[in-house]
């Protein structure tokens, strides 16, 4: 009885959710095929064309619309996201590993780490900028911004790894030790392969959070801008559909990242699935 009412309501809810999630993107996607260079960032579509995609890659004759200044900032953002991903994941794995055994003050340390997620980003960015200035440190995307990105993404990586290690059956490690394999080697050969799905998730989190981070980077990055800042910068002048075309391309890039993630995940989950069967029988 209840489901007769509940089901349609939930269906509508899910429909709305998906609409709000993908609606803006679909609109941008359609507008990115606007005619150029005269067509503006609004409906109706004067004529379908791939002009703005060619415009991004400099394949169109020069016009009054300046090419997007994204080349450098895209590389910066990707590099920064990669650096952040590696650092945060390594730190996350290591600290979560440390939390497997209760140590003195572990509760306090836990909250100090997790607080990094809670502190408003603008404040962290501003604080970092002020501190850097007063210490006479020059701000760069690869120095001060990098530090704020790590501080921001590390707790996510840490929590993901903590959840994974909580479920981890440490008897396989003990088994490895008792076979005469030293702890470091045991970590590399047993622990790491088994927690790899979690490591992948932590990497994905750190990368995506860093890649489109805005508020912290705004203050902490100095002269050379990252991609989100550069995009925001173009809004201040005039919006052309080339920015939509660019949005579509970066989204496709994100999807390909997700696909790689999904493939790696499926491969390691298939192995973990076998492990689960083993536990069930045992």
């Amino acid at each position, binding site marked *: 009885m209840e489901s007769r009412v509940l089901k349609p309501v939930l269906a509508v809810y899910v429909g709305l959710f998906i609409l709000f999630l993908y609606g803006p993107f679909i609109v941008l996607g359609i507008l990115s095929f606007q005619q150029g260079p005269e067509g503006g960032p609004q409906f109706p579509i004067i004529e379908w064309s791939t002009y703005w995609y060619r415009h991004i890659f400099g394949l169109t004759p020069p016009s009054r619309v300046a090419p997007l200044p994204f080349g450098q900032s895209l590389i910066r953002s990707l590099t920064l996201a990669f650096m952040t991903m590696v650092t945060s994941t390594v730190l996350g794995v290591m600290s979560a590993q440390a939390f497997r055994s209760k140590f003195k003050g572990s509760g306090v340390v836990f909250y100090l780490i997790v607080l990094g997620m809670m502190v408003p980003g603008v404040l962290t960015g501003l604080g970092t900028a002020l501190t850097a200035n007063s210490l006479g440190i020059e701000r760069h995307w690869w120095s001060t911004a990098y530090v704020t990105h790590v501080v921001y993404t590390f707790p996510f990586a840490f929590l993901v790894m903590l959840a994974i290690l909580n479920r981890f*059956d440490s*008897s*396989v490690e*003990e*088994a*490895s*030790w*008792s*076979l*005469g*394999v*030293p*702890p470091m*080697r*045991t970590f590399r*050969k*047993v622990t790491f*392969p*088994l927690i790899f799905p979690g490591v992948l998730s932590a990497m994905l989190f750190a990368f995506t959070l860093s890649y489109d981070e805005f508020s912290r980077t705004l203050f902490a990055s100095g002269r050379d801008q990252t991609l989100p800042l550069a995009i925001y910068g173009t809004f201040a002048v005039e919006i052309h559909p080339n920015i939509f075309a660019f949005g579509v391309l970066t989204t496709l890039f994100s999807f390909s990242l997700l696909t790689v993630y999904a493939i790696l995940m499926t491969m390691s989950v298939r*192995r*973990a*699935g*076998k*492990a689960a*069967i*083993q*536990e069930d*029988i*045992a």
Partner: protein
Amino acid sequence: MAETISNISLAGIVKRYGDVTALDGVSLVLDKNEYVSLLGPSGSGKTSLLRVIAGFERPDAGTVTVFGRDVTNLAPHKRGIGFVFQNFALFPHLSVYQNVAFGLVNADTPPPADEVRRRVTEMIRLVGLTGLEGRDIGQISGGQRQRVALARTLVTEPRLILLDEPLGALDANLRMRMRDELRNIRERLGVTFLHVTGSETEALAMGDRVVVLDRGAIAQFATPDTIMNSPANPNVARFLNRYNVLLGELRGDAFVTAYGDLAYGKRIESSDGAYGIRYDRIAVVGETAPSAGVEVPVTFVASEYLGSAVMYFFEAADGHILEVEHHLGKGRMPEYRSREKYKLQWKPEDAIVFG
């Protein structure tokens, strides 16, 4: 020089977890090439003891000495002690072959590749897994996993192997088969086994000697025969699951209980007073049958058919349940009527008394 001391000895092992004392001064000497069963109820500290010996836990007091070398503070991987886990703890991301080869390949100084191949292949053959080398751990049965766990440990040639209820996860048939296989393997390889089990039949069947652990302390360490016929105290008798243990007080030649004074054959010094009579040494007779030996009036409650024997449950005057085992080899199964009165009789010399 160290090798001349050919035993494993534990001296005064104490292990506490917070306020709980899991091991309370355990001392034990295992001989080389001996199979020792470690029996105890859950919570008696069996697994804690094994983990202390393996080095997974550090004792709060006491020393562990393996063949003359004090290993109390040594990391687990340097001890040369094998451990077979209750859940097998196989490496799920590796194949059967890789699991068995793991300890050799990843040793501090691994043997040459062809020797690894030879030893692993030989060990896989020994445990009867030839042909399954390439299988994933998820693709083999419970018994096969158990053998992989054993092979993986044996191939590294430890001098002591600790088995933590490794047969508990198997079904009864498989358990019997593995029991035989364990014995065979040991006879061929000559290592010391310390086998933790919660099953008294397993402990008695497999052990050259049996350690009975009770609340973190050793209650008895003797051959299965001695343990069975002369349990050191009433608790040991209870763990064996073969004795009716009656409570009362020893006064001179008789043991005074709620059902009268009971005569006994053997007395075992113990701080707790109790009277023990084996399930299979009791005869059931009608209420009016002539008196003979020791006698207790009871009421029949229920029976349980075990295939080779039947267990009968009788209630004594104070509500205590007495169990009687009737082997079906002795004849057909007698029938008793529920809530009818009967008498249990046994010979005084079959009974032991603690006190």
